[in-house]
């Protein structure tokens, strides 16, 4: 658990969250394996990692949106102190959209193609704020206007396919923020958008969140997004958090070799033409179970024998590393290494 400032306590507190997918007769997959973090009001927290590291499953589990069959969730997820895991469908439904909301990756498929934007926005207003008819319509118009959609009245009558990608994402954000939720989870909200729109959407999210004190969880694999938006970053690998740090600290001094690798693999403008990219070796499939050692060890450049449980006799634990930082590594990088890695 990371320290959280503010007397009011965290908006979201996730403790030892575990999600296991298991189908009858098959080996279980530990998608999320003991993740803990907290988000304070007005704070933006990033969950970073490559595909399959468990960041989306963490967010879906938080919202209670995982299917029930074949999925085992344990641990604790508290929204303003209220336990969400094991809460009834009705309770969760009342909270979703009102106290916690989520923005998804693909704005086109996240909108119903057969229904107008207006109807979809009004639906949320009707559900949580009991608004109807003209009042709801006016409020919907106001919401679209607030997220920077020009000519909102006309857009309300249009269908999702008539809007541009950026506008669709704005509409979805408007729907998510219709009830000023305490917590907003954005699951790769800019991945499906082009770069110029990405920047606009991120700016919009930042403005909206800062204005209202909403806690924002930003799920992304894009370190650029993290750099621009997040106060605190949790780097995930194979279902566990491997490094936690303040944003500046993380970028200046990555300690985990995986974090270092992520930073080094970002293409650099000052690298010169033809400078080779520095990817992390292998793929997310080349992991070993945490029970056998550091899951990243097979891909790690600095791994030693004692990264394996076989040799050291104990699992690699997430430990405090000073200055609000946590680290799960036996052989952290010295601050000099990532700079060297970026200029081979």
């Amino acid at each position, binding site marked *: 658990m990371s320290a959280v400032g503010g007397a009011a306590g965290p908006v979201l507190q996730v403790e030892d969250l575990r999600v296991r997918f298991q189908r009858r007769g098959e080996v279980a997959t530990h998608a999320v394996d003991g993740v803990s973090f907290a988000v304070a009001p007005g704070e933006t927290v990033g969950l970073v990692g490559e595909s399959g590291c468990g960041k989306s499953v963490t967010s879906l589990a938080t*919202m209670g*949106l995982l299917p029930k069959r074949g999925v085992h969730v344990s641990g604790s997820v508290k929204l303003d102190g209220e336990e969400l895991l094991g809460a009834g*469908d009705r309770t969760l*439904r*009342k*909270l*979703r*959209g*009102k106290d916690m*909301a*989520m923005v*998804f990756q*693909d704005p086109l*498929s*996240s*909108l*119903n*193609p*057969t*229904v*107008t934007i207006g109807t979809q926005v009004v*639906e*949320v207003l009707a*559900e*949580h704020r009991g608004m109807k008819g003209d009042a709801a319509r006016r409020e919907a118009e106001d919401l679209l206007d607030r997220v920077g959609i*020009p*000519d909102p009245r*006309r857009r309300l*009558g*249009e*269908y999702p396919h*008539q809007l541009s990608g950026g506008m669709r994402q704005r509409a*979805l954000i408007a*729907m*998510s923020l219709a009830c000023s939720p305490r917590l907003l989870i954005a699951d790769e909200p800019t991945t499906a958008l082009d770069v110029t729109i990405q920047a606009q959407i991120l700016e919009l999210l930042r403005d909206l969140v800062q204005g209202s004190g909403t806690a924002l969880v930003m799920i992304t694999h894009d370190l650029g997004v993290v750099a621009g938006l997040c106060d605190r970053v949790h780097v995930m690998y194979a279902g566990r958090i491997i490094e936690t740090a303040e944003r500046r600290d993380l970028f200046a001094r990555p300690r985990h070799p995986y974090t270092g690798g992520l930073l080094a693999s970002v293409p650099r403008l000052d690298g010169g033409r033809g400078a080779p990219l520095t990817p992390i070796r292998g793929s997310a499939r080349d992991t070993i179970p945490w029970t056998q050692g550091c899951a990243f060890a097979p891909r790690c450049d600095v791994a030693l024998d004692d990264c394996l449980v076989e040799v050291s006799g104990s699992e690699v634990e997430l430990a405090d590393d000073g200055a609000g930082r946590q680290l799960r590594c036996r052989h952290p990088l010295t601050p000099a290494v990532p700079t060297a890695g970026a200029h081979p």
Partner: protein
Amino acid sequence: MSAALGDRRREKIDALAARAGQVPEGEGGVSLTRSAIRRLRRDPVAIIGAVIVVVFVVVAVLAPLLAPRDPLAQTLLGQVRQGFIPGAQDGFPLGVDQLGRDTLSRLIYGSRQSLLIGVVSTVLGLVVGMGLGVLAGAFGGWVDTLVMRFVDILLSIPGLLMAISVSVLLGRNQYALMIAIAVTQVPVFARLLRGSMLSQRDKDYAVAARALGVKRSRIVFGHVLPNSLSPVIVQGTLSLATAIIEAAALSFLGLGDPDISRPEWGAMLANAQEVLSIRPELAVYPALCIIVVALGFTLLGESLREALDPKFRR
């Protein structure tokens, strides 16, 4: 001179700029339905299908005005002899049947029965089938299992056999015939809608709606169902063709409407069978009508499928 030209150009650019971002014509949303209709209008196959269907519908509606004679009057009965039926002649362009009744008029009136039975039975099958499909698709679990096993049982009985059994069970009348055909349509619609709903239920927009706390009933009826309808609409159109053929087949087998005051193509076909060696064309006409109408609905259905399903778009 050149300055004026420049001014004019600038004005034009300003006008263009002012227009940019405005809706051009026909302001407002373009729904999927409307864009599907637009695509249909450009599809020659759809147009052929639609024309056939419209022609038959018009003929059926206006039958009393269009038919040259009373379809029941045995006008030329006097000319019919053992082994002889008078052929086409003045006032009887398609000849008469063995009871001296005008074939053309009977065909025209026959379209009423065929279309009516086709439409009513398909709508009936559609409504019941969709009800079962929604039940299975929305609730899942044991409801789904129960409904689908029931549907499987219906589906395992051949359509015509089922229709014959039902019409024997319900007696020989028009309504029994409609219900019998509807029963054979039910499992098709139920399965189709359930499958379609299952595939839509886990789509992003459904999850997004859940993430916004929208009620389950609202998600099912407001989001999942409307997106699941297009294969059902297509099947409905195609089913009209099957229903008409089935209706004709049942009448042909003597399970149709016993009321001879309502001519029907299947029954005409059955009657023509008796005189097949003398006047084979009497069998050809109603058969041709059945084929063409069925073809019309099929063409329309297939192009509807293409218009509604973006994956089919070429």
